[in-house]
């Protein structure tokens, strides 16, 4: 027999001002199963909690209803309080008479009646509550970091330094990401490589870190503490165990005309290559799409003749070229995942007014970085791609693929104002005779030293800032004419330029959506990860044990990305500080006698908690993995045969609530 105690909270005047709490308690005494009901000013205070605990002992209560605020506020408080009094914490229910009643009503009489009915419903429910027990599962204290940019590097180092094992998976042949491509960083103008490469080396030599470049995540199964991940190690055709990175192969490779991804097409590379001199690992891969020997083999198969090359193999002093090397799939277990898959820059070829990406002297900010970089294709000399001449007039266009609904990118990319200012400054340092113009919509320079930096570029470096979008770029007499509007003067302007630099915005990294789906985390329309909470849980995803860092969740600059990486690392260390994980017992449960195996539940489950189980008779039924289930109830609603039920919110409990309300 349920012996229910009802406790009505005044919450100071928050509830008591509109609800007659004494009257409500009085009414509750008449509800079925209620043996004790009382009211109190602040139940969440220590005195209030003690009142509940004392009543449990005195009246031998086996169910408790706390009528107060939203369970999101104090459910843990009261669960703990009743547990201390020896009651299973799941035998306590909260009736929300604050957010759902007193705060939204003015009429005291009506609000009191509504509060009474809310409590009547919860009393009917709690009478059917069952004691629930949280389960414990073990965990693998090993972290998977996806992405080897600065965010991934920072996260991997932080967790590895805390003593945990880390595997970092990077899609390209080197770690370093976009930051490695940059010349200088704003606003301090640190040499990007100088501050980044030591981290890259530290990572590659760290005893706790396993580095997998030229690799991709294929599949993720399991749940927090126990992920099972398939990693595709792409064939490099070079044995990295024996290769010393001497460089003979890539210096002698005769195929020298492959557009370099690292130089964003501004330079060329060989077929066997390292992306840049400080690449980590400093050992090459063979790009099979461009390798002459691989092409020779393909031609031979087709019965055609093509010159055999194998220069790298002949010259390699350690015999490390391995034509037989194949793609390999590695399966490993991880307790947590940090997604730091970075970003790509917007493809400006959709802008017809800027030449559909066809004018050679209209380049992107990232391409300019490569031109300015001493280890870049021009050894740091800024020249026009069309004729190799030094530009005198350079025009920058901000917000290309940012803040533009027309191209489906309404958001601000956050970094472009700053990197454009940096470019304008750097160009002037390269050649004091260069005149720079910046077309902008607004200057967004929020950050320490950022606004001052932009001012310096305008005032000390004489860059002409023109507020307005550019409507048209067209070539004329070997130069580029830029037509736009000066919206401050309200007048059209035309500027003649030798070089145009587009501040292309940040988009989700190529393949981001596929990756999110592989991992099973939610993302927005642009392919950026949705955080668990945009303010209070910014580095967690909606899947337990999966964290994020850097531009994976939207545009960020380097300091923000690094901060997020360290934050995500702390979350992982917190997780790994436990030896067992406690799971919430309010999960779905399958009545396997009723289950017909239609697996609609599997289809609707956003957390992949539904598993398939074959019964002895051969019937395949659903089973809920309680460690993964979040108790959202979608499967319960989808189940046609009422085989699914949500513990703590069973059909019986909810029906009892509705019935109580209708009978009132």
């Amino acid at each position: 027999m349920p012996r229910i105690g009802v406790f009505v909270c005044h919450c100071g005047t928050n509830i008591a001002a509109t609800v007659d709490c004494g009257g409500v308690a009085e009414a509750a005494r008449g509800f079925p199963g209620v043996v004790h009901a009382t009211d109190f000013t602040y139940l969440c205070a220590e005195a209030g909690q003690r009142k509940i605990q004392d009543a449990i002992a005195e009246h031998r209560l086996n169910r408790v209803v706390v009528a107060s605020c939203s369970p999101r506020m104090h459910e843990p408080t009261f669960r703990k309080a009743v547990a201390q009094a020896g009651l299973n914490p799941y035998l306590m229910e909260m009736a929300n008479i604050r957010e759902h009643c007193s705060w939204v009503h003015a009429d005291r009489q009506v609000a009191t009646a509504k509060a009474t009915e809310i409590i009547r419903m919860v009393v009917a429910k709690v009478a059917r509550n069952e004691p629930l027990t949280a389960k414990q599962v073990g965990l693998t204290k090993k972290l998977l970091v996806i992405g080897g940019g600065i965010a991934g590097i920072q996260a991997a180092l932080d967790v590895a330094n805390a003593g945990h094992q880390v595997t970092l998976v990077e899609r390209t042949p080197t770690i370093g990401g976009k930051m490695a491509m940059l010349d200088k960083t704003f606003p301090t103008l640190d040499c990007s490589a100088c501050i980044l490469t030591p981290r890259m080396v530290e990572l590659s030599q760290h005893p706790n870190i396993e580095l997998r470049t030229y690799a991709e995540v294929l599949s993720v199964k399991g749940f927090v503490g126990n992920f099972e991940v398939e990693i595709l190690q792409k064939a490099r055709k070079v044995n990295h165990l024996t290769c010393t990175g001497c460089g003979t192969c890539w210096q002698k490779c005769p195929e020298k005309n492959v557009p370099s991804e690292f130089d964003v097409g501004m330079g060329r590379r060989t077929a066997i290559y390292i992306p840049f001199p400080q690449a980590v690992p400093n050992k090459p891969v063979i790009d099979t799409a461009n390798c002459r020997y691989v092409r020779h083999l393909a031609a031979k198969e087709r019965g055609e003749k093509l010159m055999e090359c194998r220069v790298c193999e002949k010259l390699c002093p350690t015999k490390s070229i391995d034509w037989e090397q194949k793609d390999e799939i590695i399966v490993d277990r991880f307790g947590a995942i940090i997604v730091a898959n970075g970003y790509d820059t917007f493809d400006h070829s959709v802008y017809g007014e800027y030449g559909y990406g066809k004018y050679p002297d209209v380049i992107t900010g990232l391409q300019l970085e490569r031109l300015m970089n001493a280890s870049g294709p021009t050894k740091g000399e800024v020249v026009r791609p069309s004729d190799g001449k030094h530009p005198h007039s350079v025009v920058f266009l901000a917000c290309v693929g940012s803040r533009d609904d027309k191209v489906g990118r309404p958001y601000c990319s956050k970094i472009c104002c700053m990197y454009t200012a940096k470019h304008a400054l750097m160009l002037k340092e390269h050649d004091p005779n260069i005149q720079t113009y910046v077309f902008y919509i607004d200057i967004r320079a929020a950050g320490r030293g950022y606004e001052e930096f932009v001012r310096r570029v305008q005032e000390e470096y004489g860059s002409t800032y023109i507020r307005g979008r550019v409507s048209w770029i067209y070539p004329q007499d070997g130069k580029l004419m830029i037509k736009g509007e000066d919206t401050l003067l309200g007048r059209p302007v035309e500027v003649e330029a030798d070089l145009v630099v587009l501040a292309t915005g940040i988009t989700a990294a190529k393949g981001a959506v596929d990756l999110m789906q592989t991992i099973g985390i939610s993302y927005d329309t642009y392919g950026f990860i949705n955080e668990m909470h945009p303010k209070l849980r910014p580095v967690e995803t909606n899947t337990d044990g999966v964290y994020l860092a850097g531009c994976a969740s939207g545009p960020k600059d380097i300091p923000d990305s690094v901060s997020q990486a360290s934050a995500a690392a702390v979350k992982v260390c917190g997780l790994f500080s436990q030896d067992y994980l406690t799971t919430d017992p309010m999960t779905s449960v399958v009545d396997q006698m009723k289950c017909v195996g239609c697996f609609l539940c599997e289809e609707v489950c956003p957390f992949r908690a539904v598993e398939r189980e074959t019964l002895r008779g051969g019937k395949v039924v659903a089973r809920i993995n309680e460690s993964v289930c979040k108790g959202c109830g979608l499967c319960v609603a989808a189940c046609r045969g009422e085989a699914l039920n949500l513990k703590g919110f069973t059909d019986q409990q909810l029906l009892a609530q509705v019935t109580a309300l209708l009978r009132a």
Partner: protein
Amino acid sequence: MSTYAYYPGCSLHGTAKEYDRSARLVCQALGLELREVEDWNCCGASSAHMVSRWLALSLPARNLQLVEKMGLETMTVPCAACYARLKDVSCELKDPEVRDKIGRVLGGQVTGRVTVEPLVGTLTTQEILDKAAGMIKKPLAGLKVATYYGCLLTRPPKVAQFDVPENPQSMDRLLRVLGSEVVEWYFKTECCGASLPVARTDIVLDLSRKLLTAAKKAGAEAIVTACPMCHSNLDSRQGEIRGRYGDDFKMPIFFFTELLGLALGYPARELLIANHLTDALSLLQGRGLA
């Protein structure tokens, strides 16, 4: 034979008679029946949309309503400004609320089922190009032309839904078929100043001069257009430009239908090419085209 509702608009009954004449002739030759919208009214371009949204929608909507009454599915519009207004309202009519309100204004329902296309679109489908290619009597013999589409035909892209917004190709393809050499230039969709000829003639002269300069620099002997406004500005302002800037372009400005008509064998006289204010006949005579 396919039948089109034909909306000439005010220009083609006035300043651009040669466009009207040549359009009707080439369509007939190519097997397209044009039926002029009965009792058509002003499309509202140039002023209505500055004054009242509902006037700007209702004026062109009435013309669509008339086409619906004629029982035709497609309307072809030679003037770029008319096209912009008619296409705009045909997009707006997709909204049931707008449709109802316009219906009330017009005192009768309009469904908006009529497809609106620019004449330059109607006459540059692959089917028509193939057909024209087989009917050429007088190839244009390497006449070097700059194709000029003007600002309205392709913009705004979401409404106009015609060709590549910043680098349209329809006329280029047609003129190549006719044996013309189409020069590469970047001013295909730039503004000629058509909305300001009375209030700010200075701006029109400046913009038109830029277009003429660019076409000349690109090596064009003539400019080909698909808009009576563009034609009027470029054709009629060359004298004033000479007066103000000293540039003497003497650049003939053609409607694309005129060149199509010439290639199909119609004499220049019948196409009313002599109506042009900037002499175009000398160029044609020099090439044996007139």
